[in-house]
């Protein structure tokens, strides 16, 4: 039986082309891989190679023909043992179906409109996307009454979380620059080497892209890496592995390839270290589906959320703040304190204005609330804790009560976390708003070194107070 040779689409956008030249003539034998013709696509001159073997029995489209539609039959091959003379030389009507299923289009419409890269684009246009599934309702665990609280520095709470999880699960290990012998550039991994040894507390060379990717591979291999970046500024070297490999592979593999990994380290401005060491990456990572992004403020949340992050089957970006490492906060003295990722915490109730913040800005928001109270303004402070998933319910509920919102972030305003929250509030609580949502943020410049300029650039308590008063029309 003869084999149809079809006009191929040789670029994703090609719909038709010119059959410029036949390199084989009727009666020639062809084997797969032989160049039989040249065509001109919308982009270039391309060679058409034979897929099947046989004798070129009939050329149906002469060379020089322009506007040959993709998938039109351009020639017929006689198979081995078939008489060339028996091959039908009539061009098939578009409705005619070839016998060989793999060589045929599914139906008439497609045959005449096979130029689409995806044959089912038409259907796809009519298909509406199903609604996004609702997020699960999360709740913090109850701390039993009478629990004592231990004042713990943020860095120690983070260390404790890692140590507890390493004791619990052999597959958890920590890697990064200076995490072992040096005891951590910021002493966050202090004494882990002593307890767990060099197999599980791994000093890496200064090679962020490499060890981030190595961590992803180790996670694919069934381990639970905790990868420390000395600061998230250096993670920009590694961001391809974080986004393209860690975040997307579960989806691209149809759910086969989980990547249980934590990337953690200090994020945002330290003190007088200049622009390259002082960036807040909250919105960068929060932008990406497939990641979870956590940015705790106090030691208890850091501990509970880091333990959850290490147990999470997904890649988690854990943003710490260098300027909080030494600050002490009460941490509940309970065994296995694990918090759900994706739940905001109302740190201070109020009725007049909602202040939304994460990481270090929570401290400023609380200070601002104190001051505002002196002026009779009761601010509600929402600590987001997690940026992805984002607990929009808690924010929206608060705004419905206060009718005003100020978002506070250390990063730049443009396309930032505050922008997302304001958009959400306008979608979900527009009728409740008594003032335009307002954002507090870093000035739109690289962070300067000079003390006065640095102070002018970074947002603080005064900025929040000013913004809160503005939305309260005070």
């Amino acid at each position, binding site marked *: 039986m003869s084999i149809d040779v079809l006009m191929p689409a040789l670029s994703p956008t090609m719909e038709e082309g010119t059959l410029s030249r036949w390199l084989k003539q009727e009666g020639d034998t062809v084997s797969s891989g032989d160049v039989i013709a040249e065509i001109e696509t919308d982009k270039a001159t391309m060679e058409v190679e034979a*897929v099947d073997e046989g004798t070129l029995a009939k050329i149906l489209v002469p060379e020089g023909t322009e506007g040959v539609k993709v998938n039109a039959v351009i020639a017929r091959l006689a198979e081995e043992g078939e008489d060339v003379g028996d091959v039908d030389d009539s061009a098939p009507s578009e409705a005619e179906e070839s016998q060989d299923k793999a060589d045929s289009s599914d139906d008439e419409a497609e045959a005449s409109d096979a130029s689409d890269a995806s044959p089912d684009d038409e259907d796809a246009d009519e298909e509406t996307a199903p609604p996004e599934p609702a997020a699960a309702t999360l709740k913090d665990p109850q701390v039993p009454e009478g629990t004592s609280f231990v004042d713990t520095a943020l860095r120690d709470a983070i260390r404790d979380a890692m140590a507890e999880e390493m004791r619990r699960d052999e597959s958890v290990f920590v890697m990064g620059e200076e995490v072992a012998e040096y005891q951590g550039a910021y002493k966050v991994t202090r004494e882990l080497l002593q307890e767990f040894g060099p197999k599980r507390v791994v000093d890496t060379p200064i090679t962020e892209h490499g060890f981030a990717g190595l961590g992803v591979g180790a996670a694919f*291999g069934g381990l639970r890496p905790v990868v420390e970046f000395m600061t998230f500024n250096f993670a920009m070297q590694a961001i391809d592995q974080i986004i393209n490999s860690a975040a997307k592979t579960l989806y691209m593999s*149809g759910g086969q390839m989980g990547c249980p990994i934590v990337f953690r380290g200090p994020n945002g401005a330290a003190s007088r270290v200049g622009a390259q060491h002082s960036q807040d990456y909250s919105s960068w990572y929060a932008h990406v589906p497939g990641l979870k992004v956590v940015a705790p403020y106090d030691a208890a949340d850091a501990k509970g959320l880091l333990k959850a992050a290490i147990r999470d089957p997904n890649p988690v970006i854990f943003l710490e703040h260098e300027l909080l490492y030494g600050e002490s906060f009460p941490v509940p003295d309970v065994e296995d304190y694990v918090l759900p990722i994706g739940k905001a915490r109302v740190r201070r109730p109020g009725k007049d204005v909602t202040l939304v913040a994460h990481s270090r800005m929570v401290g400023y928001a609380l200070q601002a609330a104190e001051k505002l109270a002196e002026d009779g303004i009761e601010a509600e402070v929402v600590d987001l804790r997690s940026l992805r998933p984002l607990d929009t319910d808690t924010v929206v509920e608060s705004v419905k009560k206060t009718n005003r919102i100020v978002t506070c972030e250390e990063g730049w305003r443009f396309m930032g976390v505050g922008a997302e929250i304001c958009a959400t509030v306008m979608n979900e609580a527009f009728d409740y708003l008594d003032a335009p949502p307002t954002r507090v943020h870093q000035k739109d410049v690289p962070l300067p070194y000079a003390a006065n300029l640095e102070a002018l650039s970074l947002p603080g308590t005064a900025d929040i107070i000013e913004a809160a008063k503005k939305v309260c029309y005070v």
Partner: protein
Amino acid sequence: MAKAPSKNTGSKSSSSMKREDALKHYRDMLLIRRFEERAGQLYGMGKIAGFCHLYIGQEAVVTGVQACLKEGDQIVTGYRDHGHMLACDMDPKGVMAELTGRADGYSKGKGGSMHMFSKEKNFYGGHGIVGAQVPIGTGMAFSNKYRENDNVCVTYFGDGAANQGQVYESFNMASLWDLPVVYIIENNQYAMGTSVARASAETELFKRGISFEIEGEEVDGMDVYAVKKAAEKAIKYARSGKGPYILEMKTYRYRGHSMSDPAKYRKREEVDDIRTHHDPIDTLKAKIMEAEIADEDELKKIDKEIKELVKEAADFSLDSPEPDPSELWTDVLREVESA
């Protein structure tokens, strides 16, 4: 002390060919060839979209390496990955259905040509970013060492990826920590349209490990037995705990970089010369006939079986439905198990 890289060219093993092995290699390579030809055809018909990088010409590399692996060894590669998947014994139907973007594809249609995986067959992708699979493969080797199993991760990349920085970051850590990884550089001479000579200061890519004390060898990647011999040695080395090993497979791709490559950067004669004189399948076929392992009829029978297998895969890939719209939202994140 730097370990001196050595050259390993050709093989004289045809006299010691085992019938079973020889026919298996022939079958495996032919399956890749016919599968890829069919994929190219389906692309031409608009049934496969986007990017589609064919492995035609390079079949001996994965076929020879795969023959040296044992249960649990992992494979990871870049985007020219269909051959690797078939070599890993993944089902041609599932691979083709992924190419056509259908529900029965290995990634439920959500990955496509460049992003396919099979944990069951220890195939870890299928990565679309040039060189990104190298730290990942190194990390899998890290996990092997950490778990104290004796598995090896075979990490493939091309001559183009050999110029990516993360490859060297990986070499450094793999050698520093003696990780069980074999790096296979598939040097098919062109990174997209740029020849090795136009892109690489050191064109002998097997030497790229010297600064990291990684041994390397150049191998005739068009000869499945030469590949096998070199891979056996390299894998044994890595498995024994001595650390990484580099094999540069000198190979050639017959088709363009991707389907829409007019391949104007090389002459047709160059391609024809390799196809005529160095084709891995023809070479093996000649050896099989010469050693009287099988005759023309028997090989034709295999050809027919493979053709049928590939046709079944193609039919399956067109019959399989598109993924259900609800799949849009699945597999973004895994559910957290309640504590």
